């Protein structure tokens, strides 16, 4: 059982040490990594994915439950506790959705009843994240960007069921992010989002701030930010409604902006 991931003693590109020499991420935490482009966010999650042991350019070390990760994480990929979804990640298979999910579930879940339940839950999870429901008969390659992203997250969370899920800038492809975070919180895992999205950042328990390759701060979401998260989500919804209307050739009026401060 994994309880914590610890990130130790890293440094930025100029060699300056991380402002936080020891960072413990606990099971159940929803964490955001924020910072400008090129600030080392992806490198940070690469360190985690790699179980860095002072052997990456950042010098960071990763501990699991306070100890060096067991070698079996490296020796047997099936026991690797980390699932990674990046902005480049996609499905390549052209199998129908149903067959695809069965192919995956077969290698993860031996019990037939549990397998069917997991597949149903995966599909229902994905359908709550995307506007357009996914049909079991449609081919994986026919899914829209939003459906693909939704299914990637649902599959990693439920069928893979790894205790740690890394999500690298997944916000860009139309999924309901507030709903996603609500749903993800029902699963006791460590979720780490690399994100530029204020909504995801404010709905996280805390955010790790990166600059020039190093961790400069860890900010816990405070009461005021927590309150703001609702307004930010609303603001975001208003903007995405506007975007949709413009996309579908409609005119927009100032009515759309009512209720905004």
């Amino acid at each position, binding site marked *: 059982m994994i309880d914590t991931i610890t990130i130790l003693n890293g440094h930025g590109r100029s060699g300056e040490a991380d402002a936080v020499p020891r960072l413990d991420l606990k099971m159940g935490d929803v964490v955001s990594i924020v910072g400008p482009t090129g600030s080392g966010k992806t490198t940070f999650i690469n360190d985690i994915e790699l179980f860095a042991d002072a052997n990456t350019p950042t010098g960071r070390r990763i501990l699991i439950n306070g100890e060096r990760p067991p070698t079996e994480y490296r020796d047997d*990929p099936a026991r690797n506790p980390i699932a990674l*979804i990046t902005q480049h990640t996609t499905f*390549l298979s052209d199998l129908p959705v149903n067959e695809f999910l069965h*192919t*995956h579930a077969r290698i*993860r879940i031996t019990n037939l009843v549990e397998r069917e339940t997991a597949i149903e839950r995966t599909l229902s999870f994905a359908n709550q994240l995307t506007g357009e429901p996914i049909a079991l008969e449609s081919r994986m390659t026919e899914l829209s960007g939003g459906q693909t992203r939704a299914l990637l997250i649902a*599959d990693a969370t439920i069928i893979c069921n790894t205790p740690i899920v890394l999500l690298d800038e997944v916000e860009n492809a139309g999924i309901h992010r507030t709903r996603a975070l609500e749903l993800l919180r029902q699963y006791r895992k460590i979720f780490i989002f690399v994100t530029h999205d204020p909504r995801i950042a404010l709905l996280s328990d805390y955010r790790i701030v990166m600059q020039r390759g190093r961790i400069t701060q860890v900010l816990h979401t405070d009461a005021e930010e927590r309150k703001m998260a609702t307004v930010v989500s609303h603001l975001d919804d208003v903007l995405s409604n506007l975007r949709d209307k413009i996309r579908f050739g409609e005119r927009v009026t100032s009515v759309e902006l009512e209720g905004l401060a």
Partner: protein
Amino acid sequence: MKLAICAGPATTGKTAVLRHIIRKLKDSGQRVAFLKIDVQYAEEDEQFAREFGIPTRKVYSGELCPDHCNVMVLGDAMQWARKAGSDVLLVETAGLCLRCSPYVDGGLGMIVLEATSGMNLPLKVGPMLSLADIAVVTKIDRVSQAEREVFRARIQDVAPGVRIREVNALYGIGIDPLVDHIRATPDAEESMLLRGNPPVGTCTICVGKKEIGWQSHFGVVRALDNQTFYRGE
């Protein structure tokens, strides 16, 4: 001197993986020699010679299958690399025919596969995978977690003994364990045998002569020093 043979379909990232391996071996003080075997065009030898200042060679297999060519020239290549004072000879081969494998007993066998080539690929590549010591899987960030896991499981089905190492060859993530494997490989013997049994065929290797080096063969032979450009005639 240690020997590591790296095979795999085209464009999977063999060269990118080897580039990281060479850098890390060099950084740890190892002297590396590199041999590239390809059918009719390759420039990795020139790239690596430029980038790392190491002894490199290439051989075009031309009308021979690259694995056949490998058997012929590997004896010469071992002598050449030993003379150059190398600690490790890395061989990169195209391994195009899916009926043989280029690995030899006493050397490390690595296949590089890309996760993006579809979940069924491990079922299709035959002895190049099943006789390898390590399967290196590249482009892992490009495919869904689901396909990555099915890909792994299929490798394990085909080759239960093979170690799977997932890497990101772009950033050099996951390369260290490969370097550890090479360093842990015992020194290669003077006389070596091809690992596994060749398929039915008409050349000395195809009929089962597994001794490495052209001197042990007849008919279609090839030394490291005689180069021809294959034009398909």
